[in-house]
């Protein structure tokens, strides 16, 4: 029988940090979710109110709208990033002139802070100032105004997210593609498999864990996005781009309704976990043979 004591001692610092900075704040948020607490309100005390915060949020139209637009944003952004990222990773698998330069340029958005990304896109899309509305009007006669048109504002938040985060997907998928063994591909080519057959039956199953990990990371990020969207649209026009993170911010800071904000945060965590769990079950979980 092996002794695990040394292993536990080596893990102890990490577990302590995780406990202090991860688990304890979560327990505190969970505690607050069952309390009414507005420190700047008439009663600044924390008052236990059972499930009333959750009872309130299932009828909160703004919150339900925020869930809907966030899910739409997450699905459109992450799906586009995976598809574009895969094609770019395939491109980087080949040799072409200026490959190193293009790879560096392509990775640059990744190192820009989200708040700066939001500012850049704000400058580019502001009517009468930005380059995008100007050329859209000059070349195609299209009037782009993200402050007025809800659909356009949503579209530009998705495009901004794709621009910012596709390099991460590309790098992850490129690493997965480079680590694949060559034998199955050579074998398939000898057997006369077409490119689409090779993709669906060899490449995709072999890089599925990498795709899944990337989708998890991106989906979790997309569901909690705040700063970029705050800079670009401020959640508007109306509440068209008020994603969950932004909605929580508006509830917690301007309204100082900490208990209700904590309840929304817990539900957002729940939604994120459910979506990741469903993806895991759908793509990689071992199946029951009898079913």
């Amino acid at each position, binding site marked *: *029988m*092996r002794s695990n004591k040394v292993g536990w001692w080596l893990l102890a610092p990490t577990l302590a940090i995780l406990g202090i900075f991860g688990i304890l704040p979560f327990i505190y948020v969970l505690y607050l979710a069952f309390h009414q607490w507005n420190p700047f309100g008439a009663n600044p005390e924390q008052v236990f109110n059972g*499930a009333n915060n*959750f*009872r309130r949020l*299932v*009828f909160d139209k703004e919150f339900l709208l925020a869930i809907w637009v966030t899910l739409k944003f997450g699905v459109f952004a992450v799906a586009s990033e995976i598809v574009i990222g895969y094609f770019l990773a395939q491109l980087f698998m080949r040799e072409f002139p200026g490959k190193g330069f293009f790879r560096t340029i392509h990775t640059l958005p990744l190192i820009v802070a989200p708040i700066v990304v939001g500012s850049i896109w704000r400058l580019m899309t502001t009517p009468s100032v930005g380059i995008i509305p100007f050329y859209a009007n000059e070349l195609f006669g299209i009037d782009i105004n993200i402050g007025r048109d809800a659909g356009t504002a949503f579209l530009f938040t998705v495009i901004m997210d794709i621009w910012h985060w596709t390099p991460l997907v590309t790098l992850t998928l490129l690493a997965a593609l480079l680590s694949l063994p060559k034998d199955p591909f050579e074998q398939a080519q000898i057997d006369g498999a077409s490119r689409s057959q090779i993709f669906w039956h060899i490449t995709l199953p072999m890089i599925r864990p990498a795709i899944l990990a990337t989708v998890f990371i991106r989906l979790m990020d997309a569901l909690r996005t705040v700063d970029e969207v705050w800079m670009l649209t401020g959640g508007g026009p109306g509440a068209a781009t008020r994603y969950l993170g932004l909605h929580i911010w508006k509830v917690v800071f301007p309204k100082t309704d900490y208990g209700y904000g904590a309840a929304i945060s817990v*539900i957002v965590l*729940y939604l994120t*976990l*459910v979506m990741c*769990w469903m993806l895991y*079950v759908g793509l990689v*979980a*071992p*199946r*029951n*043979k*009898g*079913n």
Partner: protein
Amino acid sequence: MANPAHTPARAPTVDLDAADEEAQAAARRKRTGFLPIQTNWFDRLFISIYIAVALELFWMRFLEPNGIPLWICHIVVIALGVIIVRRG
């Protein structure tokens, strides 16, 4: 052929049989129930909590306003949790 008397002192080795038994025991802990995937007890507890939260929110939104109290939902989710953890 090397003389066994001159064999150098061997470093402590990993007991492969014990490691194998441990791996097999870990695999055995995953089991098949009525859920469509293989799960261990923690997976089943997790699934129970997911379903419990969804059911409680659904109850608060649609059934409680019609006069069906929330404590019935608590009993339902506890019963469902026990079934999933034991049979799932």
